[in-house]
């Protein structure tokens, strides 16, 4: 007499376990992502974009950016080392847009920085920082976070 073997029971715990483990992993990743403060790491970069209308006959100009602290009354405390510039040649009257990348030093202190941006001419750049376009100030322009 032939014996019939009972069908082997499939391991039904595998799929639920995979779902749970995957879910935990996604939740952990999301938690770590959300826990990370917004902003740029020291040594990271940001872009600055200038848009303006130029009415002159043409010339060479410098687009200048500083990070620092803006106080009431328009006093801007420039942070040494957090300054960038780009030289541009404007052929004549037109609307212009320029972007350039600013690299933060690795030693940048993590905090929120205000921005000062303006247009100046070539040459020595000493106080009183005479701009011929701007300057434009922005509070909290760049947020530098703790390095992770």
């Amino acid at each position, binding site marked *: 007499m032939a014996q019939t073997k009972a069908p082997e029971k499939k391991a039904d715990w595998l799929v639920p376990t995979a779902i749970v483990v995957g879910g935990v992993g996604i939740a952990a990743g999301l938690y770590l992502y959300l826990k990370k403060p917004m902003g740029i790491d020291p040594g990271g970069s*940001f872009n600055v*974009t200038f848009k303006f209308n130029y009415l002159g*006959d*043409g010339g060479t*100009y410098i687009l200048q950016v500083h990070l620092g602290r803006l106080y009431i009354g328009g006093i801007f405390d420039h942070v040494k080392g957090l300054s960038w510039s780009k030289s541009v040649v404007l052929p004549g009257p037109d609307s212009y847009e320029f972007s350039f990348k600013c690299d933060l030093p690795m030693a940048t202190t993590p905090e929120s920085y205000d*921005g000062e941006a303006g247009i100046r001419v070539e040459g020595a750049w000493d106080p009183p920082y005479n701009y011929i376009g701007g300057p*434009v100030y922005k509070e909290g322009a760049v947020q530098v976070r703790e390095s992770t």
Partner: protein
Amino acid sequence: MEQMPAAVPIVRTTGAGVYTEVISVEAPASAVAGSLVSVRVTIKNKYSALIGIMVGGALKYGVSPWPTINFPNSWANFPAGASYYFDGSFIMPAFAVEIHAYSYYYGGDGSWHFDDEKTRNVSLEAAEAEFRELSVNYTKV
């Protein structure tokens, strides 16, 4: 072969226009910040023979060291009594400037010696209205 400057055999006290004289400094009376300003400096050879004469120039407007004026051709051999001009240029800063133009002669000791100076003022043309509607945005890379 590159021409060599002719030398004054005896070097005298400099800075008094002994062998050369800055005759004139030509430049616009005013300029807009950022524009290219042309300068023409005319120098005369007061020596009794051919000598090498060099031009130099700097801008006085409150920064140190004084920015220099660019002269593509900065020296030439002048016959006795001859005058010659040198053309140069600079980018107008955001300040009125005082141009200082210098003349040098080539000495028998193989060096250039400062000999004479003349100045000219260039005022700053109002340029506030040249840039309008400036906006600046900061974005994370």
